[in-house]
């Protein structure tokens, strides 16, 4: 990546609707060159953050920069960011070919060859009206439109939330393929960790309109540990071990801790934590058990 600016950088970013803060005090820097997952329960502020990043919303407080520039500040800035909005909107009355023509007319950096190849690979009929495409095909068309403008950053807002499992897998495969092919940073939101687990190497967990944790996936996994051992209070753990969740059953205690140092206490059985468990732990309340949270999220 030649770009030294973060893909998305926010400082004290907040967005208020009436009395409700959809996003509050959000400070983060998603580095460029990553596929970043933005995960959190519904209503956590994912769409708000993405809308702020694409300039569809203006912040109430703080500031946000995308690739070092204010979002949607001009044709140049717009050209650098591809956006696949929630529910992947397309012009129902326009054909697939019309959408490609639209992209060609509105984007100076349009890659017609790429667009055509993608439509062929997807075996979409160029004459087909977008309104008659399946949800998966529509999402693919929206992705093609965003990719063929050759952006430096691709932002996707729950692009696969409404797709069936097959279409979902196809979409993610295409996404992984093109991000490897093009030099492209990706920020993608989802309320399902499983979707992101396969593609993301950077993670932002957004809960109740605040960023709970963010970082590279490898780092996150390396610094979180699941400890099981004789029952004890969370407060008795060393200061270097930040307790994310604790659960107690009978004489046993289980802790999910964040610690940059390895845990060497022989009293503990130390296990690595899966990305899904980690995210669920951060999504859950301080006192909630992992198991309950998992059920809640899966429902």
């Amino acid at each position, binding site marked *: 990546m030649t770009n030294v600016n973060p893909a998305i950088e926010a400082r004290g970013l907040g967005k208020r609707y009436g009395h409700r803060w959809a996003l509050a005090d959000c400070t983060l820097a998603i580095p460029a060159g990553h596929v970043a997952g933005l995960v959190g329960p519904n209503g956590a502020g994912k769409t*708000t953050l993405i809308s702020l990043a694409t300039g569809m*919303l203006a912040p109430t407080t703080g500031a946000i920069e995308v690739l070092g520039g204010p979002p949607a500040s001009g044709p140049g800035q717009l050209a650098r960011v591809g956006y696949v909005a929630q529910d992947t909107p397309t012009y129902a009355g326009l054909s697939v070919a019309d959408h490609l023509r639209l992209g060609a007319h509105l984007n100076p950096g349009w890659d017609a060859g790429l667009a055509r190849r993608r439509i062929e690979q997807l075996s979409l009929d160029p004459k087909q009206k977008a309104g008659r495409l399946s949800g998966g095909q529509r999402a693919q068309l929206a992705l093609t439109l965003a990719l063929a403008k050759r952006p430096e950053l691709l932002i996707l807002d729950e692009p696969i939330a409404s797709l069936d499992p097959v279409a979902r897998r196809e979409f993610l495969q295409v996404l992984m393929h093109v991000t490897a092919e093009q030099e492209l940073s990706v920020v993608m939101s989802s309320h399902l960790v499983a979707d992101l687990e396969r593609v993301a190497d950077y993670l932002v967990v957004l809960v109740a309109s605040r960023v709970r944790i963010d970082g590279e996936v490898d780092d996150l996994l390396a610094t979180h540990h699941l400890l099981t051992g004789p029952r004890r209070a969370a407060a008795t753990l060393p200061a270097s071990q930040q307790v994310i969740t604790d659960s107690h059953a009978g004489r046993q205690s289980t802790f999910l801790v964040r610690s940059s140092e390895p845990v060497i206490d022989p009293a503990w059985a130390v296990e690595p934590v899966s990305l899904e468990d980690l995210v669920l732990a951060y999504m859950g309340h301080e006192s909630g058990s992992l198991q309950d949270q998992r059920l809640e999220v899966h429902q």
Partner: protein
Amino acid sequence: MIWLTWRQFRPQAIAAAGAIAVVAIVLATTRQGLAASYTAAGLSACHGHCATDASLFLDRVGNLDHVLFFGSVLLLVAAPALIGLFWGAPLIAREIEAGTHRIAWNQSVTRTRWTLVKLGLIGLAAIATAALLSLMVTWWASPIDAASLAGGAAQAAAAGGNGAHVTFSGFAEARLDPVIFDARGVAPLGDAAIAFALGVTAGVLLRRMLSAMAVTLLAFVAIQVLMPNFVRPHLLPPAHFTAPMNIQHQQISTNAGSGLSTIQLAGSFNKPGAWVLSDTVITPSGAQSPDVVVTPAGPELTVLPKACLPTPGFGINGAECTSALSALHLRQSVSYQPASRFWPLQWIETGIYLVLAAGLGWVCVWQVRRRRTP
């Protein structure tokens, strides 16, 4: 951006082109008869005082042509409203409703440009459509308009006695008549521009296509009522005409039931094609005479001088009555826009609408720029 605007507008453009073609065919095929009848009445060869020929021609205008005359007026009032409803209101509201603005606003084109191109191109199409319709209708109706202007309508009214025929034909006031005015010349262009701009603005502000259409219709109707009734009469200072009432041919009539006698008065105002704003009978002090009531047939004096009241056995002394009436010094006072003001009024009104439309366009751009919808 131009391509996308055109591509999205294509269905509406095709519908409009079809409608214009139908109107053109109907008007072109029926005008021949109208022109022939105009020539037959001797009007094409007439110079100077043509009122008689004109009234002859207007009397011969057939039923179909009457329907077309008023149908074309209706068309030119309805066309801008339809443009506002079906071109203006959906232009941006439909994008926001369908969520496609999220595509449009994330291509490498700023929202300002996106809005300006849409507004500019479709706005021009709206104005061009209105221009085409106005041109066709003005051409079609030119024999009738010319005959009305030549005084034919006024004469036909006089011949028709109580004017019932003229009220039906509506030819009396010619092009300056509030109903006809918006269907001639450049006025339809301004109407189309303001209706379109109202539609787009309502769509941008309300973000719902149907409510935007409803508001557009209401606003446009309000404008069409306010303009001819309260604004247009004052766009240019009205001309005034005052002259003594004509009392030479008084006709005293007595209501059998009430026993009240009235005298029919006649004014001498005769300016073909003028738009009469007010027509009153005034006393020497300049105040409106309280003894005069205006009936469909004209002003009537209800409180008669003594000399004009019939005395049993003697009748009326005509000379004494006339001098008694003269002593009242009743005058006709008319405030009007002369026929020659047609084009100045047309240009002023169209100019006002175009400026207002441009202002609304600015509101649209400003709103789209600051509109932040996820």
